[in-house]
């Protein structure tokens, strides 16, 4: 902290000097302040290295953009930004240790969240203890926010909204589906998603006819799928991760489980899902935090279209960014705006500015409730149609219509 204080003193001095030199000509050009140091412990190796890598891409995309503009503006001084990364090896327990190291050894002034609800929950304890604000972009479990923490903010729509949007959409379709088979991985986040579906379904006139969980990262789900098939559901939902959503879709085809809607919480939005399954990926729905087709009107940073272009340029990709990347960038944007609004690098002032934040970004509205959850941004529903993602619900941000019902496996 001493470095930061010295930095802001120097920045103030620089502002004064600049003001003297420029006397008479309106607002002086901003000076350069000391770098602002962000810390992030993300999964760069281990079972979540894919998602961790996407998180880092999202952070780095903003990092380039803000530094091209000289940095974050605080009291008319532009502070360039550094992000110091640690690798939590996909181990939630290690994550907290690394965040402690980032704060005490690397002198990180602010923390960007890790990948996953488990790691986020353990990091939240550390930042709370040290009084360092954390904006997290990849932990959607509401349980993270149920402890009254003051320093943790999440830009995501919470877990309970992941698949309820699909039910909202299903209720508008004809013939209306009424029975649901719900599969869930045995982890906090996935179980929260599944419970929300079970709680919400009756209000839409639907009932759960099969509801089971399986161990996370289960390589084999064929036994479960054959049981689900016996219940003859209209909707098959999975709340889990990419590997399981691929396995479930494969097993559904092998065992001839035909439903009108297949919807998976996590997985279908990634390019891997389509490349792994080919044409079998078609018709699958997912609830997504964000899609490259949404039509938000941001008040700063990039428009949705420019964001997609910036991503493709930096990472030399023809694919648009998936939502893990976008939500991670959104976390950085929350910090950028809050620091600007606070006009200070003091952690408690930035924390207060985060609590009061209300901005529209390419990712949607960012505004936190008293727990620190962004409940103001809706989830969107997308569907894979002929190998391409289309946003199909809600209608005001959609660029396609749901293809319904899903044809049987034998007639595809």
């Amino acid at each position: 902290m001493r470095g930061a204080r010295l930095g802001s003193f120097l920045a103030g001095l620089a502002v004064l000097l600049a003001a003297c030199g420029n006397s008479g000509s309106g607002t002086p050009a901003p000076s350069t302040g000391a770098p602002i140091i962000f810390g992030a412990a993300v999964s760069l190796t281990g079972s979540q290295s894919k998602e961790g890598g996407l998180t880092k891409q999202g952070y780095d995309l903003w990092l380039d953009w803000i530094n091209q503009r000289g940095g974050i503006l605080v009291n008319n001084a532009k502070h360039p930004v550094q992000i110091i990364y640690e690798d939590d090896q996909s181990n939630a327990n290690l994550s907290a240790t690394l965040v402690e190291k980032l704060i005490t050894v690397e002198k990180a002034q602010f923390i960007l969240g890790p990948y996953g609800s488990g790691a986020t929950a353990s990091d939240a304890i550390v930042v709370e203890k040290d009084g360092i604000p954390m904006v997290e972009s990849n932990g959607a479990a509401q349980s993270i926010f149920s402890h009254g923490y003051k320093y943790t903010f999440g830009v995501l729509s919470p877990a309970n909204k992941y698949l309820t949007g699909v039910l909202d959409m299903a209720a508008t379709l004809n013939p209306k589906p009424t029975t649901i088979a719900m599969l869930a991985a045995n982890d906090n986040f996935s179980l929260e998603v599944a419970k929300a579906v079970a709680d919400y379904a009756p209000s839409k006139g639907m009932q759960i006819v099969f509801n089971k969980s399986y161990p996370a990262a289960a390589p084999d789900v064929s036994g479960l799928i054959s049981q689900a098939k016996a219940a003859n559901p209209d909707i098959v939902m999975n709340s889990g991760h990419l590997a399981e959503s691929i396995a479930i879709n494969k097993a559904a085809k092998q065992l001839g489980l035909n439903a009108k809607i297949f919807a998976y919480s996590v997985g279908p939005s990634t390019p891997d899902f389509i490349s792994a399954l080919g044409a079998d990926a078609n018709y699958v729905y997912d609830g997504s935090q964000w899609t490259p087709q949404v039509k938000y009107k941001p008040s700063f940073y990039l428009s949705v279209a420019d964001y997609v272009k910036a991503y493709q340029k930096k990472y030399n990709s023809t694919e648009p960014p998936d939502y893990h990347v976008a939500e991670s960038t959104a976390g950085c944007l929350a910090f950028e705006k809050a620091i600007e609004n606070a006009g200070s690098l003091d952690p408690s002032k930035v924390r207060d500015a985060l609590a009061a934040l209300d901005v529209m970004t390419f990712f949607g509205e960012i505004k936190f409730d008293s727990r620190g959850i962004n409940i103001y941004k809706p989830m969107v529903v997308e569907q894979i149609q002929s190998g391409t993602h289309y946003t199909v619900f809600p209608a005001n941000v959609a660029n396609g219509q749901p293809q319904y019902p899903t044809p049987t496996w034998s007639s595809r």
Partner: protein
Amino acid sequence: MSQFAQQVVLGLLLGGIYVAVALGFSLVWGILNIVNLAHGALVIVGAYITWDLFTRLHVDPFLSLPVDALALFVIGYALQRGVINRLIRAPLLFTFLLTFGINLVIVSLLLLIFTADFRSVTPSYSGSGLHLGSVIIPYIRLGGLAVALAMAGVLWAILNRTRIGAAILAVGADRDAAQLVGVDLRHIYALTFAIGAAFAGVAGGIISTFQSITPTAGDPYTLQAFAVVILGGLGRVSATIAGGLAFGLIEVLGQSAPGLGSGFANAIAFVVLVLVLVIRPRGLLGRLA
């Protein structure tokens, strides 16, 4: 009733995968007294070879299995001769640490080469199956079970019908005595490990057809192989078959136990494992030590 029959069929098919994975693991453990924690990583190396041949050259996954076997045989031989052999007489803990380290190195190399993207081998017949009344037998898994049983036959034939096999069994029984009668210990050690690795590679080729693979996807299989060997017993090919099929059945039937989430399936499987250890410590079909 047909639902139960379907579950039994799926359990046996899953068991076939476990047999394939555990054969090499059991051989290395039985003969070299090494619990190879890198076994799952070797399985995934095989899976990546099959994936690579499928995506680049459109080779049918089942036709690429011999390539997996050959490549992993070479890797296994070199790994044993160059690295593991230096610790072959060290206490179990040392080889534990060593193979744990090898596992990390292989997984990291795979991450560097293939990245963490999810890969999948999806041949045209991957979704279809044999319909027997209301019971469906997916072709891919049936093929997997057939290959697993064929592998078991090959291993049995090598061990019981060839001079090399006799030498391998001799080393397993008493390494000093085997050396006295002229067996080249280092060669047999390396050969045994190479055969184990080759079998892991074939298992990986099968796995790539029904599961999406990542560099870390092998870790659960090391654990499964361990459980299968404990359940079936060490030192016999038939014991591995019995252990693998039993473990697959227990897992799938455990998933359908009424009222329980299938999160309990693993727990049920390991409870059975503990019971077997208590009642029959040498496993279902294992030899007395």
